Structure formats: structure tokens, C-alpha cells
């Protein structure tokens, strides 16, 4: 079954993409995910200066998902250029970047451009790093300006990653106005856990983001809403761990899907999900295109 997927300006061998911040911090881990079947890679979010990230615990597995507050740990674009270069080859590599304002986003994008990323994903939605991510992503003007600034600076596709804790369609439209080629929904949902034995919040950063199976129905609704209102491609992410999940997102209008927490089960999840999608399409006698947005009545 042919799963070739086109997202404005990019051609993917299949619609499964590694989500930002998951095993995407070095060329070696990226290549391992490519061997695991991913159709494209989004790197860890990269910024202007190195960040060690938050104190631990930075991530725990809960009964229904995962909580994390990594804190945008990254070695800065200066250092990451090398990883990006070494990653290039088999599948499109999308550089996730963040900054405190349009200038910083532009600086990081331009800083990485010599490593030839195939696209950029703008992280305006990380819920647990003050002054970054969702703090910016709540403001439609900021999102529009940042998108426009990066779009002007580079000549590869630009995706904008959205937070669920806003009027997501409003922010998605802002990204579209700014020239985004696609939006990615969703980042983790702000969340926390408390240890009743010690009375301490469990995450080192106190609060963090919820990912994994728990958030799937929420992410799906975001994709559904965005697909109804936006013209550009929607990339779905949040709790996808099976081919059925992936198909739900495609039926809600996703052009492709990203997989994050589910690498916990198996790094080859990308291959498994692609195979599952193929089997499903074959059984039903559908092409991938036939089911895109089909649940949006």
C-alpha cells in the first residue's frame, strides 16, 4: 500500500512523524527512529543559548499517560547544527525551534539553516518554560508575527505547534495569516501530580505537561476544529499509540501525525502504525486520501 504523504513542500514515505522533544536530541537517536520507520523527524526544540532543563523528576509515567517538565533542555543552535547535519538523508528532518520573541526565533532558524533542515516547527506551546512556549502561544499577534518573521527568513516550510489550552482555532488562524505551511496540534496539556506521602509536587518544576493516551480525545477534537476552519495542512499529535488512533486523526483531517510518548512501548511504533494503516486501507479498499477529513461532516 502506498502511504506517500505530501505536506506542503515535503514528501514523506509515510504519515508518521517523530514528535518534538522525543529522542530527537542527537543524530544517533534520530537515525534510530528513522530505522524504526518514521516518515519524518521533528528534532528537540532548539533555542539561542544552552539550557540544562528543569531539575528532576522531569518525567513520570502515570496510569493513563505521562507527565513531563523537561524544561526545553537543549545545547543551543550553535551546537545542534552538527546533529542536524548528521541526521539529514533518508527522511525529512524538521527542526523544532523556540525563542522568547520573533527575533530569537529568527536567530535560531537562521543559525540552523546551514545544516539544511527540511522544515521548521515553531514551538509556541511548551507549557512549562516561563517566557517561552505557551506564554507566547496564547497571543494571536505574537504567533502571527513570529511565524511571519521565520517565514521571511527561510525558504523551507514552516509549521507552528499549537497549545490546546487556548482558543486553538484562533491561534491556528493567526499562524495561517503569518504564512505557516502547516499547524501541529497539540503540545502537552498543563498538568501536575502531587505525592501524598511527602506533600510535594512530583515534577521538579512543580507543573508540567500531560501527554500519552490520556490526551488523545482532546488532541483529536483540536485537529477536527482546526481542519474545519483552516486551509493549511494540519498535523495531529497527542496520545497516538496505534494505527487506529492514527486513522482517527486522519479522519478528523490530519495530513500526517506525530508520535511522542508511544515510543515508550517500542521505537518501531512508526513501522507498526504504518503497517496497520496499510492493512486497514487494504481491507476497506481505500486510499489514504479517501479517509482524510471523512469524519468532518
Amino acid at each position: 500500500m502506498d502511504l506517500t504523504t505530501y505536506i506542503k513542500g515535503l514528501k514523506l514515505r509515510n504519515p508518521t512523524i517523530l514528535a518534538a522533544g522525543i529522542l530527537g536530541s542527537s543524530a544517533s537517536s534520530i537515525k534510530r527512529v528513522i530505522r524504526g520507520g518514521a516518515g519524518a523527524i521533528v528534532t528537540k526544540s532548539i533555542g539561542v543559548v544552552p539550557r540544562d532543563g528543569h531539575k528532576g523528576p522531569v518525567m513520570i509515567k502515570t496510569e493513563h499517560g505521562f507527565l513531563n517538565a523537561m524544561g526545553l533542555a537543549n545545547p543551543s543552535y550553535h551546537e545542534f547544527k552538527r546533529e542536524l547535519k548528521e541526521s539529514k538523508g533518508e527522511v525529512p528532518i524538521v527542526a523544532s525551534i523556540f525563542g522568547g520573541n520573533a527575533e530569537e526565533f529568527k536567530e535560531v532558524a537562521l543559525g540552523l539553516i546551514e545544516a539544511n533542515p527540511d522544515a521548521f516547527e515553531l514551538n509556541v506551546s511548551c507549557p512549562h518554560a516561563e517566557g517561552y512556549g505557551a506564554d507566547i502561544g496564547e497571543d494571536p499577534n505574537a504567533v502571527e508575527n513570529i511565524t511571519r518573521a521565520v517565514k521571511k527568513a527561510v525558504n523551507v516550510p514552516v509549521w507552528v505547534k499549537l497549545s490546546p489550552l487556548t482558543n486553538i482555532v484562533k491561534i491556528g488562524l493567526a499562524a495561517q495569516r503569518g504564512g505557516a505551511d502547516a499547524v501541529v496540534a497539540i503540545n502537552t496539556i498543563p498538568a501536575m501530580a502531587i505525592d501524598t506521602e511527602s506533600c510535594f509536587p512530583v515534577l521538579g518544576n512543580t507543573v508540567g505537561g500531560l501527554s500519552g493516551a490520556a490526551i488523545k480525545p482532546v488532541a483529536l477534537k483540536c485537529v477536527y476544529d482546526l481542519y474545519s476552519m483552516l486551509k493549511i495542512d494540519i498535523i495531529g499529535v497527542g496520545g497516538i499509540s496505534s494505527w487506529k488512533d492514527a486513522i482517527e486523526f486522519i479522519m478528523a483531517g490530519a495530513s500526517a501525525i506525530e508520535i511522542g510518548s508511544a515510543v515508550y512501548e517500542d521505537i518501531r511504533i512508526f513501522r507498526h502504525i504504518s503497517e496497520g494503516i496499510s492493512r486497514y486501507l487494504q481491507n476497506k479498499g481505500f486510499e489514504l486520501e479517501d479517509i482524510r477529513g471523512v469524519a468532518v461532516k
Partner: protein
Amino acid sequence: MIPMDAEITHIVNETPSIRTFFFDFSLEHIPGQYVMVWIRGVDEVPMSLSYPNAITVQKIGEATSKLFKMVKGDSFGIRGPFGNGFSLEGRSILLVVGGVGAAPLGALADRAKSDGLRVETILGAKRADELLFEKRFKEAGDLLITTDDGSLGHKGLATDLVGEIDLTKYDAIYSCGPEEMMFRVLNVVEGIGMSSRAQFSLQRYVKCGLGICGACCIDPYGLRICRDGPIFRGDQLTETEFGRYMRDASGKRVKI
């Protein structure tokens, strides 16, 4: 999982810089597996299980210093056990141990002894008073000691001895200690074609412990210390970053 509450029942001052913290429950585990130790309000750090109910810790920085201030009755959080652990193979094994690397290998020695294996240990430390689990390794089999300053046993490095003895008589070799030390062991076993019979316990920045965040991956195959390791066979480590560089908390490469 929310970290389990581990209450300290007993503290053993092993060396001037190393203590064993026993806590109020036991974890079924394979020697070599680690737990994430949550020093509340400070940080969470990986520690090998030195006993089913204990970790043995060297005072290094923030989290370990806070731990060293704790007394009986205080508690910390524990997630785990995580990772693969050592695989005990054959009948006669050699342990090459440096410093606090004795934590997982002490547990392995106990297990090997109770399984009836022949255990020989080369135990190294800076000074005589920094030797960890000396008695424990002796009880498990033969023990050779090295100290950097010669204050006990052979003066020099554990790896000096490794170069001298006939390794082919062992079915398996296990090593944990400073990476320079383990790297030398790797070079020796590689030289005699035994790298697949040697197992190393690696230390890298471990953050999530779940195999998701990518912090602990080693080049060029992307093996994750936290999930695929922390124990690797020598043949998995040749031509990798091992012994050459590692990454700091930000993901930046730093020379070893």
C-alpha cells in the same frame, strides 16, 4: 508511577565519601538495574541498587550532598527498578571495579556467589579508605586490590592488573567504574576478541529513565543508557562515543 516513599532505616558510612542508605522495602531486581532517587525539592538522580533495599552513593554535587544530610527516618522517593541489569553467564567470572562502581557489582557478586559461580574481583580506589565493599567481594570469591597511592594492594590502577592476567580463563567479565577505566578494559578485551563476553555499566545523564526524552543516547546507534542499558556488552560499545565523549545536561558533547 508516582515515586514510592522510601524511608531510611539505616545508613552505613562505607568510605569518607560513600554511604549506603538502606530503606524500608526491598525491590525485586536484577543486579545492575538502577532506580531514580528523588531528593525532594532538589533533583532526581539515577542510582544503582547495591542491595534490594539500598543504594550506595558517592557525594558528588547537589542531590547527593542533600542525601548525605539525611538521617534515619528521613525519606526520599524511588522510581524503578529500571534498565536491563547484568546477565550472569558461565561459571567463572571476573569483576573489574572502580570506586562507587562497586555498587551494582557488589549486588552482582552476591548473586553470582549464591548461584555457585566462581567470582574473582579486581577492586580499585584512590586510597585504601576509599575501597568499597572490600569484605563483600572477598566473601564472594578471590579479591585483588589496587590503590592509586599504593596504600593497600597493588599501587596503580585496576586496569593495570587486567592487562596482566589471562582473561581467557573467565567466561564473562563485568566492569563498572570511571569511564576511562572501563574504556581501558574494553580495549584489552577487544584486543583478545573477548568484547562480547564483557559487560559494562555505563553512566550518562539520565533524565526521564523511560527511554523517551533522548538525553542518555549514545552515538552512533542511539542506544539508550536508561532503557537499553545501563549494561552493554563490549561489542555494542566498540566504535561508539564510549570512552571518548558524553553529553551534559543540555545535550552538549563533552570530552571524557
